[in-house]
């Protein structure tokens, strides 16, 4: 069944578009309560409070429930033909702002990695460092930093993840996944529904394979190599960058699965498919970040 969304449907006799304003809902307040509980829970967690995990988990559940319900309502409104061309533009601009914040977010963590790798560690290890002279005279600068300035307080990693191995496989997995989503994208443009669905399925399968390898890599790093968030600056930057990347891959996979369900349900036309476009672009974005990780975290 093909559901056509007619964007020009909401036009009055004077040619003006009707901009759909929905009924009042409690999604926003639900999201706020969820976020509040998450924040409260996280703070408790960090201060070793017993309520921390429960609050955080409850808050996350509420937030996820809100997002699921709200987005479902948006899809239903869209399929009912309530959205005008201006609404489509609103969604695209909303995406731009979201992506801008995402770019800034990763920029911060790459910036921290760059600063530590190129400035802090070499500077501390240099002969002219008075800090080193007074506090840590035995400090040797290297990257990865295996021996921290205070190695008794912060035990460095025994080993780090080699670039040639799981990370190389992961790069291949994500690249293939992006090839599949591009193949699916062309299929949607050419109105080939079956190719679109197969392409999306393969995209998702390869993405799940990537996440599985990452889980395995994390277990290896955390339990066998002594590489953790608190094993020094190398471990910190490694897990912050790869961790948040994996979270974004997870988010991208959820989006892809929803889009797949929508494609199977007959949503989207070759001319009208913002949901697909946005998700496909986001998947490319996640892949590009991985390329940067591959080069700057695993190789350099």
């Amino acid at each position, binding site marked *: 069944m093909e559901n056509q969304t007619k964007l020009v449907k909401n036009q009055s006799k004077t040619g003006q578009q009707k901009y759909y304003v929905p009924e009042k809902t409690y999604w926003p307040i639900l999201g706020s309560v969820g976020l509040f509980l998450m924040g409260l829970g996280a703070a408790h967690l960090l201060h070793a409070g017993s309520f921390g995990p429960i609050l955080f988990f409850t808050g996350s559940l509420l937030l996820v429930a809100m997002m699921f319900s709200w987005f479902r309502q948006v899809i239903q409104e869209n399929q009912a033909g309530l959205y005008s*061309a201006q609404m*489509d*533009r609103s969604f*695209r*601009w909303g*995406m*731009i702002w979201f*992506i801008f914040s995402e770019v800034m977010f990763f920029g911060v963590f790459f910036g921290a990695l760059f600063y530590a790798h190129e400035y802090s560690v070499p500077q501390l290890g240099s002969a002219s460092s008075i800090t080193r002279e007074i506090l840590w005279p035995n400090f040797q600068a290297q*990257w*990865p930093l295996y021996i921290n300035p205070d190695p008794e307080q912060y035990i460095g990693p025994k*080993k*780090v*993840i*080699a*670039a*040639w191995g799981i990370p*190389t496989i992961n*790069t*291949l997995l994500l*690249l293939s996944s*992006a*090839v599949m989503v*591009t193949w699916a*994208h*062309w299929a949607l*443009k050419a109105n080939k529904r079956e190719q679109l669905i197969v392409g999306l399925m393969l995209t998702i399968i390869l993405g799940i394979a990537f996440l599985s390898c990452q889980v395995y890599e994390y277990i290896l790093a955390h339990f066998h190599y002594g590489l953790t968030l608190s094993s020094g600056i190398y471990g910190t930057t490694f897990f912050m960058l790869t961790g948040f990347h994996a979270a974004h891959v997870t988010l991208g996979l959820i989006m892809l699965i929803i889009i797949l369900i929508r494609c199977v349900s007959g949503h989207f036309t070759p*001319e*009208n*498919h*913002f949901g697909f*476009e*946005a998700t*496909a*672009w986001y998947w*490319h*974005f996640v*892949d*590009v970040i991985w*390329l*940067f990780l*591959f*080069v700057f975290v*695993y*190789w*350099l």
Partner: protein
Amino acid sequence: MLIKIIIIFFLILIVYNLGSGLYYLLKDEGRSNRTVKALTWRIVLSLLLFVLLMIAFAMGIITPHPV
């Protein structure tokens, strides 16, 4: 040094294509092929970069940091 410049150049091209894909997503509103073309270029360049990295590694031009 040259290899580093080539890698950075590829990364810049890749980000440029990703960016132009986003731009066309905003501007063309699904009515043209420019978004999917930009994203196709993005993945092609990424695959080329990966092959370049593997060749450079195989030839010993670049070595990953020690483990």
